[in-house]
């Protein structure tokens, strides 16, 4: 296969996948928190490598990234990225604390954060699985907290193998007056991408 360029129909399909996936993820989060969580319409974004590190508040902004490997009918991984300050808010909400309280990283808070990522990405994937009929199995989550540029280089490199752009879905959700912006990077390997689009009738 040569360069991987998506047409507008395929982009619409991917946007819809993102919409359904993120919607499902937010519903799962609301259940976990036992609170109402609002979600804005997810934005599908495509950017050049030079812009990648600016995505989550700038290349040096500390972010939390939760990565899950995918196997089954498609393979690759999914990465959920949010600013570290937002990640701390989520942990506090999850632990029934004041969202703006300082969070100390320890086994409990880190595993809480992993669990949030696990649930969000897991439900995102299960929505895609239902939509496509493909078997998508997520693996155990892995968490990294570091500079945005460094975390985002992981999906960027995967995209770099076949294209010069990175595709991701930005989802903004809020609990009460606390706003959290999360970014889903679904990174199937190229063959899986084609499979995904074919299954949805978006590729001949």
């Amino acid at each position, binding site marked *: 296969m040569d*360069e991987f360029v998506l047409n507008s129909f395929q982009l619409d399909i991917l946007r819809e996948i993102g919409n359904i996936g993120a919607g499902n993820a937010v519903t799962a989060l609301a259940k976990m928190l036992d609170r109402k969580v609002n979600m804005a319409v997810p934005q599908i974004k495509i950017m050049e*490598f030079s812009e990648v590190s600016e995505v989550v508040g700038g290349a040096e902004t500390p972010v939390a990234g939760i990565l899950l*490997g995918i196997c089954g009918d498609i393979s690759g991984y999914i990465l959920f990225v949010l600013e570290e300050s937002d990640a701390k808010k989520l942990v506090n909400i999850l632990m029934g604390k004041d969202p703006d309280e300082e969070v100390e990283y320890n086994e409990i808070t880190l595993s809480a954060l992993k669990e949030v990522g696990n649930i969000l990405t897991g439900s995102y994937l299960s929505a895609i699985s239902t939509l496509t009929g493909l078997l998508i199995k997520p693996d155990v989550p892995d968490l990294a907290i*570091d500079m945005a540029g*460094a975390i985002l*280089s*992981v999906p960027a490199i995967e995209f770099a*193998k*076949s294209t010069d752009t990175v595709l991701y879905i930005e989802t903004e959700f809020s609990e009460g007056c606390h706003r959290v912006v999360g970014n889903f990077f679904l990174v199937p390997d190229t063959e899986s991408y084609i499979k995904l689009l074919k299954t949805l009738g978006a590729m001949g």
Partner: protein
Amino acid sequence: MADNVIKVGMADVKHVMHPGVLVTLGLGSCVGVALYDRKTKMIGLAHIMLPWSYQAKNRTNKAKFADTGIQLLLENMLKDGADRRNIVAKIAGGAQMFTYTSVSDMIRVGERNVEATKKVLQELNIPVIAEDTGGNHGRTIEFYSEDGRLMIKTIGFGINYI
């Protein structure tokens, strides 16, 4: 940021004369290849993402790969008056941001980027005089034409000069 500071993004190569400074923010698994001409004080920086161009399906952007990226940077520098006999290299980056094992091939890319970078530099007869590579943390690097120093800034591991 001062006037003489130039940013180098992902999959990008830039070079500048003294007193310029080249900067790359948030290197992860990518590798920053810093070339320094000790006589003219010209500096060049390549921000490569993948090891070998022949392994990729899309090679339009030469700066993306260690082999074609370093070659491109060197050519650009020589064209503008650098002398390859005076050029030395420093490299940084190539971290493994996630410890994930089941997708090891995808994740080990940092290590492979460093390996490829060293091999390419060796073939070009450019000595690597210092490096800060590997680990599992991000790095911001600043490269000074004044003395060829490379500053490496991290979250949690402080600032280091090589």
